[in-house]
């Protein structure tokens, strides 16, 4: 029987595949990769594309990923898939949008946090909750 290795494909939101494989094909940023058991440790970025897994039963499984990372250990291959297409300028645009949202919401942007006021208000909220709890216990 041919040697196998353990392969996991996971994204931040879900586990996509977990099982044994004879060989894994993926498209790295430097070119196509074919990984067999006992490969030297490797860490690479993946291009958006398919990841192909050949199982010990000779089946071929295809998964589409929109980029990510590939980690290779002699007997473990892990694909950390991204959930969406990513690019540096896209990320920066998202960061800018998040900043703008913050600015819109904040009339007093950049002002110092008012510790005393916040603590008083929070203490009040907690006192209210405790009072409600006490009332409940009494009514029992």
């Amino acid at each position, binding site marked *: 029987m041919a040697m196998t290795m353990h392969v996991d494909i996971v994204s931040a939101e879900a586990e996509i595949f977990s099982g044994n494989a004879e060989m894994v094909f993926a498209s790295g940023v430097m070119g196509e990769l074919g990984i067999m058991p006992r490969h030297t*440790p490797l*860490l690479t970025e993946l291009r958006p594309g398919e990841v192909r897994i050949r199982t010990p039963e000779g089946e071929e499984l295809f998964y589409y990923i929109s980029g990510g990372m590939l*980690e290779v250990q002699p007997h473990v291959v892990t694909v950390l898939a991204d959930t969406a297409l990513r690019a540096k300028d896209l990320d920066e645009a*998202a960061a800018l949008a998040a*900043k703008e949202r913050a600015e819109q919401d904040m009339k007093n942007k950049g002002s110092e*946090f008012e510790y005393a006021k*916040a603590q008083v208000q929070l203490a009040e909220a907690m006192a209210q909750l405790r009072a409600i709890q006490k009332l409940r216990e009494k009514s029992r």
Partner: protein
Amino acid sequence: MAVGKEIRVKIKSIKNTQKITRAMEMVAASKMRKAQDRMQSARPYATRIRNVIAHLAHAHPEYKHPYMQEQAGKDIGVIVISTDRGLCGGLNSNLFRALVRSMKQWHEEGRKIELCTVGRKAAGFFSRFGGRVIAQASNLGDKPQVTDLIGSVRAMLNAYDEGRVSRVYLAYNEFVNTMTQSPRIEQLLPIVPDSDERLKHHWDYLYEPEAKDVLTHLLTRYVESLVYQGVVDNLACEQAARMVAMKAASDNAGTLIGELQLAYNKARQAAITQEIAEIVGGAAAV
């Protein structure tokens, strides 16, 4: 018979409220289960990526990434995760209280704090009380996605890259079980590698393209996955807290209705007794 009309109206209105709270309780219960599933399915990614980072920390790479090293400055960045909606007991208040306590301490040490809020409640809280909010994300809904968080995380990472903050914390509610949610403030950056002795031998990865690029990529994803994990945890907490709060409200409505019903019955009985007494009295007089 016009006895106790006010009481009847009141009972009716409380019953209507009870219907709403009971419905909300059931909705929260079913959403909580889904949120818990989501929490579970987010775990493998975080575990795997943590393994890779543990390998990295022990692999003696020729390049040390700034995300894994103590920085010189003293200012602090905090990513606060809150709920979008209220009616979930003291969940947000508890978190904000824990956070304000830490913030006050940092403030007294002369550290400046930059904030990034997730969820409408945190945005509202900090717009009421001030604070330097550099990024905001809200309305994530019941199915939060990593894409919704990229911007906020990026803004915080940029602040770290530029040296505006030297440490980044994540504040969120951890889901312990349905009855217990505990506010947590965890250090995100610099990454503290777990000391796993098993891995202490000398080897290193082959990096494609460059160690620096690959590591930046990996560590960014790691931070994003931790924040996402915090968001889904917080969501499960929100639903659990809402379920408990709504159950308490339904129970309260039940006891109130019971009391009012008793008062109503007594009033009605008193009216009947009085009427009979009047008739008997009248008959006796004839």
